[in-house]
């Protein structure tokens, strides 16, 4: 028999044992640091975090005033983006990930380049000192298991779609997920600040990432502090029932009358649900569970996990993988030529075009400013023919506001869109454009649309954001606007040329600056409070020249001739 001493000297063995003993300690240390007010963590926090999150971590730094979502208040220990189950604190890795990657759609940036990995780790330990729960933590938080992942498939999306309605997601997130549910405008977070449900069609604004796993974790863990509940206990429909039982119960509930046997059957389901919900409450309160209760809870959560994967697949199906490429550079909006009449608003011809994507930003230049925009972008398509041009604008807005009185100011708020062009197209790349914010020394020409008069566009001339006037002579502009499922669609048609010198005159092949302003009445947008864009460009894409069918064959023929001629010449010289 070979003994270990024969291979290693005694000192080495001691080292080996020490090393092996250290491994679990290292791992634990890596998973959950003790909250630690290190000098370094404090220094980093005060340099980079305190201006928003406050010196004492209450989320009340001086910059917080104009931010929504508000910077996190670390003293409550409520964290939205976690890999841990409902009611648990986040892991260190969760906090580190948020600091590293930031939270899209909010003012929290990623700190990957600004702070070193060590600085970020130190600041995680420091942030944890603001909430006592981290110190009292006895065991690491329960992690959400991703083991049972259900792969993306049409079937799963279909099941998820059913659950989306059944579980009541619609109430906040709307029929097809644009965040336009009936209760959307009424939601507040744990601190009483207004909060909007996510627009599930804009995955690039998901705070915790848009991978299916990310979405799944938000369901299981909930977004602590926000109105989004964790899928557990009484916040999950028919918690404690299997899928089949759940289906059967819904079926029974939908009957006008139940037989005695059916009454009894549904009664059993209710009892089962009550038991499961009670166990969930016990867990939240920290009560020890019996083996049997643990078993019931595990069974109930198995159903929740399975349904959540289907729902995550459905949510994943609602949005593109990332934000569409903005219409800048060569990716400009190109109006396509048609020989016949331009398509009407609902014509299928629009589906043949790709949208051009114009992100909008908050107007923070001129008072009163809007720091917390709710409209993300506007998408545009366009056709033109020999005499007219038609545009189709679509933009997401969670609320349909046509005339609502602002309680504070008494202003009548409504949703609106304005499309801006220069009056005169600048000639050449260095020619000045009008100031992008509704003109200045050089005037701009605007199409103003308002939700209260959806089939009308007014022509304005502006020389400044507070200096716009409706034109005395309105050209014949046709417009049709509508609002469905959290999205506005506006169709506008105008002649390429008008008699009015204050109007934009259009010609194929000429690049025209274009910019947008949009107002969300429910967000308090009015006048200068709005979202805007800087100048983009659009062009009536010229019909490709017919020369492309003439010159290339000519050149090819010519080259054949030249080759033959050369051969003849060489042959003649040889002979």
């Amino acid at each position: 028999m070979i003994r270990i001493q024969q291979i290693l000297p005694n000192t080495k063995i001691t080292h080996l044992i020490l090393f092996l003993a250290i491994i679990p300690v290292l791992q634990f240390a890596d998973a959950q640091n003790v909250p630690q007010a290190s000098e370094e963590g404090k220094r980093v926090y005060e340099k980079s975090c305190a201006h928003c999150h406050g010196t004492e971590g209450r989320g009340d730094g001086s910059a917080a005033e104009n931010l929504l979502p508000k910077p996190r208040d670390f003293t409550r220990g409520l964290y939205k983006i976690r890999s841990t189950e409902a009611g648990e604190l986040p892991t260190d890795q969760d906090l580190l990930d948020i600091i590293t990657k930031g939270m899209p759609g909010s003012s929290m940036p990623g700190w990957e380049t600004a702070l070193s990995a060590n600085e970020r780790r130190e600041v995680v330990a420091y942030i944890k000192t603001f909430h006592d729960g981290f110190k009292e933590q006895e065991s690491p938080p329960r992690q959400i298991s991703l083991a049972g992942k259900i792969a993306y498939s049409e079937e799963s999306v279909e099941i998820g779609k059913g659950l989306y309605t059944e579980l009541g997601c619609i109430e906040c997130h709307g029929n097809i997920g644009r965040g336009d549910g009936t209760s959307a405008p009424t939601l507040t977070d744990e601190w009483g600040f207004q909060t909007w449900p996510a627009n599930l069609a804009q995955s690039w604004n998901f705070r915790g990432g848009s991978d299916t796993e990310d979405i799944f974790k938000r369901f299981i863990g909930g977004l602590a502090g926000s109105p989004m509940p964790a899928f557990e206990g009484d916040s999950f429909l028919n918690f404690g029932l299997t899928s089949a039982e759940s289906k059967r119960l819904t079926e029974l509930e939908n009957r006008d009358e139940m037989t005695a046997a059916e009454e009894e059957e549904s009664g059993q389901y209710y009892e089962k649900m009550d038991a499961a919900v009670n166990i969930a409450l016990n867990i939240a309160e920290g009560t020890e569970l019996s083996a049997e209760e643990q078993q019931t809870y595990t069974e109930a959560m198995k159903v929740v996990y399975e349904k959540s994967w289907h729902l995550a697949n459905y949510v994943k199906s609602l949005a593109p993988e990332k934000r569409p490429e903005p219409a800048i550079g060569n990716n400009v909006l190109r109006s396509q030529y048609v020989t016949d009449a331009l398509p009407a608003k609902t014509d299928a011809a629009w589906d043949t075009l790709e949208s051009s994507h114009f992100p909008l930003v908050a107007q923070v230049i001129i008072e009163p400013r809007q720091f917390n925009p709710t409209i993300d972008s506007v998408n545009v398509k366009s056709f033109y023919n020999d005499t007219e041009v038609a545009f189709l604008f679509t933009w997401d807005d969670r609320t349909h506001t046509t005339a609502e009185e602002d309680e504070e100011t008494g202003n009548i708020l409504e949703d609106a869109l304005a499309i801006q062009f220069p009056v005169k197209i600048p000639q050449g790349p260095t020619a000045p454009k009008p100031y992008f914010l509704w003109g200045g020394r050089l005037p701009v020409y605007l199409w103003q649309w308002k939700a209260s008069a959806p089939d009308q566009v007014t022509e304005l001339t502006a020389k400044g954001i507070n200096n716009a006037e409706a034109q005395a002579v309105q050209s014949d502009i046709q417009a049709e606007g509508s609002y469905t499922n959290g999205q506005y669609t506006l169709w506008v048609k105008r002649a390429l040329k008008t008699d009015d010198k204050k109007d934009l005159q259009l010609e194929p092949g000429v690049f025209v600056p274009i910019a947008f302003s949009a107002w969300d009445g429910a967000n308090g947008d009015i006048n200068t409070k709005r979202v805007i864009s800087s100048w983009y460009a659009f062009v009536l894409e010229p019909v490709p020249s017919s020369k492309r069918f003439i010159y290339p064959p000519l050149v090819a023929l010519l080259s054949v001739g030249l080759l033959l001629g050369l051969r003849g010449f060489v042959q003649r010289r040889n002979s």
Partner: protein
Amino acid sequence: MKRLSLFTKCLIIFIGCWVFLRFIVGNVISVPIPGSVIAMYMGLIIVAILVHISVEDTRFREFLRPIHETLVDNNRRVRRRVIAVLIPLFLLGYTYSIIAQRTNPPGNPRDAHPSPPLEITYKDEVIGATQEVENPFRHYEKDDPEAFRAHVENGKRVYYDNCFYCHGDDLDGQGHFAPHIQPLPANFQDPGIIPNFQESFLFWRISKGGPGLPAAGTPWDSAMPIWENYLTKDEIWDVILFLSDYTGYQPRTFGEGH
């Protein structure tokens, strides 16, 4: 192994040079070279090849031999036919691609260094000549470090209450409103920004914003607000101190060469 003919060698050199300039330099060594510059280099290479082959009469004849053979020799018939099809086809496609090319919008040329006016003003109040105005709090850096810290701290507050939306938490021009503003907000971590300007210039840019840019050198399209409408004179000077304190870059002082 059969020796390569002079013609093949020249062809290999020509194509090799083009591949090197177009792909190796552009993707591996440095940034892509503009097409016109590549064309110029290739012209030089053709001249070099022509000089090389025409130095001796025999060399010139050796160069022409494969062309000659391809054109007339009976045992080169296949090669001849392939070439007679490939060359016209290539020209057909090439001409078509040039004619059918989409027109692209004009670029956005931008003078990154506007000339400041002769005088620095705050609203209508003249502060002094651009070449003379200094940050009134800069001297605290040496005279009274505590007072200096207080000004930097106030500058920090001003920055995070007003500027970070666009210029970013880390002053890197990547604030949460920044990605969709054209042109992008200034990145103060870029060594080409703060060290290149005097504090009076920074004061001018901050106080007058995009609309205060000179008429020459358009289009500006800057989204920078006119900060004198919102900030006091002292706040602007303080935020300038913060910019250089945070990034570690010192603004240019008077008397330094440009």
